[in-house]
């Protein structure tokens, strides 16, 4: 069993504890794994990935882990192989937002631990580095998402004028989304507002007679708001048997889709466009 010793307690998790002289290695592992699991779940990972990654690291450190994964909390118990010592932590996942960089980094970290390439102390340092990963540049995201949505318009049969209108409508809506999220606005209000802005601007193709496919421009101008990752994660959790998380994620995605639809309908009604 190669659990960490008491002398290598230097990094993030237990740094705020006033007296760490009595901390056992198993307790350090428990704290690390609960923090790791909370970050992974909060960054948009599926439950099956979470279980595999945590089990992989626990096996490498020679301990047993039992987890209960809830939509916003993780209940984690780590015990020694002979069950003589165990620690249980309940950690809130927080609101980190979906980040593929963090997901990938944390998964890679679990494999490095499992392969024995890094020590526990090094793993904690790497974990702190990964969780401090900065988000992608908002300007770059704005540009790429607008180009992607314009490409969607093309895939659905839109002409070049419709693509240009969709590009502008997406850029405006996504810019509004970034502004409002930066002000910590409610996500549902953000979705309704951005869908309305994009729908109204997307209807400009029909309003000014630009191109031959104005209806495709309106329809595809709000596609960037569709919550694809929560839907995919909910089905993944459903297949893995994590019904509570699956239902929670599905409901969250449905609520966002309803908000998106409400904003789109408001935009269409404002622009005197028929919905069906």
């Amino acid at each position, binding site marked *: 069993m190669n659990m960490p010793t008491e002398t290598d307690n230097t990094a993030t998790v237990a740094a705020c504890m006033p007296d760490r002289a009595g901390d056992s290695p198993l307790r350090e592992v428990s704290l690390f794994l609960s923090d790791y699991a909370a970050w992974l779940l909060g960054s948009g990972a599926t439950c099956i990935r979470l279980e595999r990654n945590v089990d992989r690291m626990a096996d490498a450190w020679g301990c047993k882990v039992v987890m209960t994964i809830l939509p916003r909390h993780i209940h984690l118990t780590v015990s020694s192989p002979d069950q003589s010592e165990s620690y249980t932590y309940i950690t*809130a996942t*927080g*609101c*980190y*937002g*979906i*980040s593929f960089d963090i997901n990938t980094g944390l998964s890679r970290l679990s494999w490095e631990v499992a392969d024995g390439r890094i020590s526990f102390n090094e793993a904690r340092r790497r974990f702190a580095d990964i*969780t*401090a*990963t*900065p*988000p992608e540049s908002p300007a770059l995201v704005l540009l790429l998402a607008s180009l992607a949505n314009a490409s969607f318009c093309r895939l659905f049969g839109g002409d070049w004028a419709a693509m240009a209108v969709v590009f502008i409508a997406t850029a*405006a809506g996504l*810019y*509004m989304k970034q*502004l*409002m*999220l*930066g*002000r*910590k*606005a*409610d*996500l*549902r*209000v*953000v979705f309704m507002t951005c869908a*309305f*802005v994009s729908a*109204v*601007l997307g*209807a*400009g193709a029909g*309003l000014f007679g630009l191109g031959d496919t104005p209806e495709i421009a309106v329809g595809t101008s709000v596609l960037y708001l569709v919550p694809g990752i929560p839907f995919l994660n909910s089905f993944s959790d459903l297949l893995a048997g994590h019904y509570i998380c699956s239902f929670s994620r599905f409901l969250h995605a449905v609520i966002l889709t309803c908000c998106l639809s409400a904003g789109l309908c408001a935009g269409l009604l*404002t*622009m*005197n466009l028929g919905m069906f």
Partner: protein
Amino acid sequence: MITLDIPLMAWCTVAVIMLALIALRAITAISRHRKAMAYGKSGQCSRICRQETVAPKLKFFEIGSESEELFLPGDKDVTKNDISDEYAD
């Protein structure tokens, strides 16, 4: 008789608001950049501009106090709603 073209008005209103927001943001960024340069901190200009952009969080639209898609690295405020032992009986 003048008829009111609501779609055109709505489109123009949204377009003008978005342009105004973008212009306001650009002007603010440029003025902060100039201010940072004027104080002779050209080496730290990008950091100062970034800090000043992030720091003043006006509480507009605060129907809910959190947004789930905003990722702020290191912003793990677990102590905010924590009831610590000092409040226990």
